[in-house]
């Protein structure tokens, strides 16, 4: 495969971003958003085609791998970016920073795509930094006091996490390998002993921060709640899938799945997963704000995926598949949920952002409510939705590895999670809106059909991933998500 072809998705997205920047400079905001979306869509389609046609191929010049899982993750990232950008285009076109947000979204998608496909530890860290930097900018783009505060919090904590990562890199590069290319590192780490374990723990800390796993989570709720929902719909979801993919690439490939590290790795990740599941679910239960609830529940969702990551230490032959499916299911469903929040906000301008405030939406916007219900069920892990397969495979791996207790923790967490996911369904369909609210609502509130359609499209994806494997098996997913 030629270098250009392998780079084409990232180049397409970046080209869209640069053109968008130019249009935005001439104050053609709508056009800018359109061009960026088109670039993302093209990047997504090309990535999808690469994923289906090519088996994993290493590109020597860039130390990138292309094809199958590497491109499939990029395809998902680009497509979610395109869908959320189109869905949010009405809000963004009305905001003064809308054009810049669109451009940043495309760059974030490109950085995430790079993250999921690079086999170079230095580039992993650079891509992570790029993801983080762009996210700070996206959080503060709303230009409110609270969003500035959230971005600052995110920035400072992120700097600490980057410090971890650089320290890990210096141990690995300086003490052992003298190389940043993953397969080279693997050779040098055999028998490396305790210093390598320290490096692994530090690397894990960095990944945990970017994934907002407990106890590295505290930046996430503020950041997600204060950003525009349609922006969070991408920023808070698809990059996590790319980071999970990178995690499942780097750890086994460096050789941390070797016998001498496997047990420690399993327990570190199992601890991280358990803590995230317990903390995310119980704090999620206490939230009243819809998007804040989604942010906390996202901590638990990462925990479920990390169950699969922990089990992968003990089952090297199945590396990553369960984690990727769990990450994919989370990314699509959470993107849909945030998109739904955007759609509700425009349909009911008086909505205060709380779950209780969703009362009566079921009757007012039936299609949107049905789509949101699908998202909530998928995040809970009910069968016939994508979320079921993610949990089923991740917990199945835990059981295969002989640690069924991890599966039990995850499933009990899912039961608790219905307390708040179900609360959304309950509000939409079972609660009557308070009389005052219906009277005072302005009659001319125009629903944002773009946001609504984006939510519905994502709901259809969630259902398709959930239902089709019953008829065609998981082989398509497992071949297209294969990393090695």
């Amino acid at each position, binding site marked *: 495969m030629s270098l250009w072809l392998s780079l084409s998705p990232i180049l397409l997205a970046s080209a869209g971003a640069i053109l968008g920047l130019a249009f935005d400079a001439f104050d053609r905001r709508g056009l800018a958003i359109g061009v960026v979306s088109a670039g993302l869509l093209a990047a997504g389609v090309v990535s999808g085609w690469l994923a289906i046609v090519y088996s994993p191929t290493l590109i020597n010049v860039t130390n990138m791998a292309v094809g199958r899982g590497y491109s499939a993750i990029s395809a998902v990232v680009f497509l979610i970016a395109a869908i959320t950008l189109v869905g949010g285009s009405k809000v963004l076109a009305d905001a003064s920073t809308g054009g810049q947000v669109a451009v940043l979204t495309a760059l974030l998608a490109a950085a995430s795509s790079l993250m999921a496909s690079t086999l170079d530890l230095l580039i992993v860290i650079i891509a992570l930094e790029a993801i983080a930097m762009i996210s700070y900018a996206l959080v503060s783009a709303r230009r409110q006091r609270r969003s500035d505060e959230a971005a600052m919090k995110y920035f400072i904590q992120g700097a600490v996490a980057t410090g971890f990562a650089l320290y890990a890199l210096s141990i690995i590069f300086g003490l052992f390998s003298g190389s940043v290319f993953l397969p080279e590192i693997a050779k040098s780490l055999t028998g490396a002993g305790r210093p390598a374990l320290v490096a692994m723990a530090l690397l894990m800390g960095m990944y945990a921060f970017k994934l907002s796993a407990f106890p590295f989570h505290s930046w996430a709720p503020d950041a997600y709640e204060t950003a525009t929902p349609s922006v969070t719909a991408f920023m808070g979801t698809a990059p996590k899938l790319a980071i999970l993919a990178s995690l499942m690439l780097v750890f086994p490939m460096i050789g941390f799945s070797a016998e001498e590290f496997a047990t420690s790795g399993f327990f570190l990740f199992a601890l991280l997963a358990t803590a995230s599941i317990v903390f995310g679910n119980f704090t999620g239960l206490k939230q009243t704000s819809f998007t804040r609830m989604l942010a906390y529940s996202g901590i638990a969702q990462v925990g479920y995926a990390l169950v699969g990551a922990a089990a992968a230490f003990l089952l090297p032959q199945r590396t990553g598949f369960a984690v990727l499916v769990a990450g994919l299911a989370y990314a699509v469903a959470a993107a849909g949920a945030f998109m739904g929040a955007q759609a509700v906000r425009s349909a009911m301008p008086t909505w205060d952002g709380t779950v209780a405030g969703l009362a009566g939406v079921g009757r007012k916007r039936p299609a949107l409510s049905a789509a949101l219900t699908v998202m909530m069920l998928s995040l809970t892990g009910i*069968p016939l939705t994508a979320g079921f397969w993610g949990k089923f495979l991740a917990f199945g791996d835990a059981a295969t590895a002989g640690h069924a207790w991890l599966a039990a923790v995850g499933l009990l967490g899912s039961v608790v999670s219905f307390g708040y996911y*179900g609360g959304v369904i309950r509000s939409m369909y079972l609660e009557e809106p308070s009389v005052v609210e219906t009277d005072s609502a302005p009659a001319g509130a125009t629903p944002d059909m773009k946001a609504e359609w984006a939510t519905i499209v994502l709901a259809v994806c969630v259902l398709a991933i959930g239902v089709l494997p019953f008829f065609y098996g998981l082989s398509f997913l497992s071949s297209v998500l294969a990393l090695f």
Partner: protein
Amino acid sequence: MLTAVILTPLLGSLIVALLGRLSAKVARVLALLASLASFGVVIAAVATSSGSQAASGAAQWWMLTMDGIAAPLLLLTGFLGVIAVLAARSETRSPAAHYALLLAVQASVSGVFLAGNLVLFYAFWEAVLIPMYFIIGIWGAENRRHAAMKFFIYTFAGSALMLVGLIIAMFQGNAFAMGDLLSTPLSVGLQGPVFWLLSIGFLMKLPVVGLHTWQPDAYTQAPTSGSILLSGVLAKMGAYALLRIAIPIAPAAYDAARPVLVALGIIGIIYGALVALAQSDLKRLIAYSSIAHMGFVVLAIGIGTPLALGAAMLVMISHGLVAGMLFLLAGQLYERTGTYEMSRLGGFGKVLPAWATAFTFAALASLGLPGLSGFPGELAAVLESWGSIGWWTALAALGVVFSAAYNLTAVRRVNHGPVAEEFAGIADLGLAEWLAVAPLAVGIVVVGVWPQFVTGMAEPALRALAAVTGGAL
């Protein structure tokens, strides 16, 4: 053919949801046609199926099979599906959505009984919850939201434990296809945890005492149609899964657990009957009587002889018909009086002679009068218990006496005595209501005088199962 059993109500549900918006009448007619068509497809599927052989082998996710244990329960599901649609005829709040959800419940319950592998089974098991949640939560009585949430959380908690069990069985024990479970049980070390994890989920659904606290709320707060499906078919999913999955997959653990099942059964029989006796709310009384009847099912499964397993099947079918009829009649009374409170009711033998006759009939079936469906199953369960647990059987027999007490008390309080003035002029059952009540009465008589209709279908499957169960405790 088997796919059609699930697809017919599902398509019906979609059609009703889309076209039913035109008018309530269109929705009602379409729903009735869809449920009749679904019942017809079930009958055809049962009639043409070869019976005992379950599919096995190939690891396909979409895999349906019907064995003798499932066949009678599928017939019951199709039958009660029609009754539930008829029971919902006076529903005025978005009737199209209501009918669509009833048909969706029917489709997913049929899926549970037809699932050919453990993953599909779990998928349908959970799928049942969602439409049922909405039926209780939107169309239920005053306390509906609380009841719906409680119903969902409890059964979801049970099924989460069940999924842990299924995951262990599948990923550590390589169990997958239903047809293979009996011939390749799990290794003995896995059996104990798997059996109990699965059984907690299954027993939650029945429910047995201790795991039952969601049930009276759900049964009483649900609309009549929902109560009929909840008690008539949803409760049977638990017993079916015990027979079809938990016992074959973990026979040794089942054997060790038999005394516990027997004890749970007897406790359920007595507790359900005593609490039913104390109720003044007619619908709550029926809900608690269901716990007592399900107690017989658990007791018979614990005994485990071929005849006892047949008895369990008979009690399940009978309870589906009898509880369905009682909830239907209670709902019809509520539509006229606006209350289930028995202290305010009375004297309907004079005011509503037809209704009162049907109610007496259903109560007699519930207490196990010979010739009606309640009798053969409970008699066989008690007889088989005697051979297995001796004098302890007396406790179960005591439950039968209590059940006569609460059923007859209900009949006395509702049908006899003076009529409250406000209810003096209410009208008796109309033709449409008769059309719902009469088939249930016919079913109760048929199963009462011809129990082989049920046991004959189930016999080969139950005999195969009894090879790993049964014997003295």
